[in-house]
């Protein structure tokens, strides 16, 4: 697992208070990890802060799963 994926996972565990084993790439923040819409806003902010990236609102709306987040951040970092 990449360093980015590791860090994303850690942030999700911390913010949503879920077991690490549940934070699989396919896990949906809302459907599988018990987040509500405000939680997801906070999560995106935490990603922005941790990875020093800007995630515009229209992009943030498309980040529904752990993998979505990892992919988006990896793309930004590669650019």
């Amino acid at each position, binding site marked *: 697992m990449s360093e980015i994926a590791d860090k994303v996972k850690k942030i999700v565990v911390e913010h949503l*208070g879920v077991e690490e084993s549940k934070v699989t790439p396919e896990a949906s923040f809302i459907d599988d990890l018990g987040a509500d819409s*405000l939680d997801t806003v906070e999560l995106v902010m935490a990603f922005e*802060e941790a990875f020093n990236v800007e995630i515009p609102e229209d992009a943030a709306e498309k980040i529904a799963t752990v993998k979505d987040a990892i992919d988006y951040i990896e793309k930004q970092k590669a650019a």
Partner: protein
Amino acid sequence: MLQSAGSDLGRRRVVVTGMGMVTPLGVGVENVWGRLVAGESGIGRIRSFDPSELAAHVAGEVPEGPTAEGKLTLDEWVAPKDQRKMDRFIHLGLVAATEAVLDSGWMPEAEEDRCATGVMIGSGIGGLQTIYDASITVHEGRAKRLSPFFIPSALTNLVSGHLSIKYGFKGPNHSAVTACATGVHAIGDAARLIMLGDADVMIAGGAEAAVCKLGIAGFCSARALATSFNETPERASRPWDKDRDGFVMGEGAGIVVLEEYEHAKARGAKIYGEIIGYGMSGDAHHITAPAEGHEGAFRAMKAALKSGGVTPGEIGYVNAHGTSTMADDLELEAVERLFGDDASKVAMSSTKSAIGHLLGAAGAVETMFSLLAIRDQVAPPTLNLDNPSRESAIDRVAHESQARKVNVALSNSFGFGGTNASILVRGV
């Protein structure tokens, strides 16, 4: 529907069937009450921040520690992941509310019952520390980093909101905000909602967590806090004493479960007592100082007695607002005027001498102390009343609790803005 005995308040009687509190004397009604009656103090040097640059260094803070010792372990009451979405006043409110709901045994599953159960938990100030922290984030140019939970963490009515979600209470969802009169207004207004038929059960009270640098500094600037007892914190809150020099702030929450009498009886609920009277008034005088002779307080008390159909001679105990400020003697004057020739028969104490002034939670906690005074036939003490600034026929229960015959008790709360509220309770 039942006619309230001797009362013109409404058609339905309202009783208290559950109680919960967290105060500087600890967590839990029986724990706090036991310590209060024993004459213990919950006041100490401020621990949550360094107060040394401020004039006041003392406050009443909730002791942290094992639940078994009557102290607060927040993780056992509010899930850690939810804690950072709430200001501390919400944490404390949920602790007291959970105790009260469990104590009442009223956790309805049926939709109809849930819709007949409402919430009315206020706060004098709301999420002050949360607002302070968020202001710094914005000031540092990080406005876009502001937590999405900032607003719901700071809003005063959010103990009501969280509590309703936790237990599925779908009735009136309300909150009182009247500074230091909040707790009594919440309970009195909630009782009226039951009397008028808007709900059968209401969870009501107040929560406050303003023992933070901004809160203490603000009340220091208003010259409202005790500053002469920084080295002897337990002596700082001294209602009616000639050396008093301001109030001592406390944090905490007090919540009661109010219930329509027949509803409570039908389910065999434990009943602490009845809310028989409630009176309100405004000073229309000054933003922080009471009017001469505390005539606003006098009118609030008089209105409570009228609504309860009670004469002063029937009242065995008064829990005074008694904040340890100059206003103490004005309240005393108003109570003397109210009781007239019966003044020598009543006991009046200020429990703020032991726990400090819990602002928006004070009236709720003190209403419960009044109910417990009736249950246990005891008047809790006014600590530190060494030399009263003036004599009175009214026994102010200096230093030690007194065994007393108490069938009816009155509790006073007055707030900045010239708002006054008095509530009258009786054993059932």
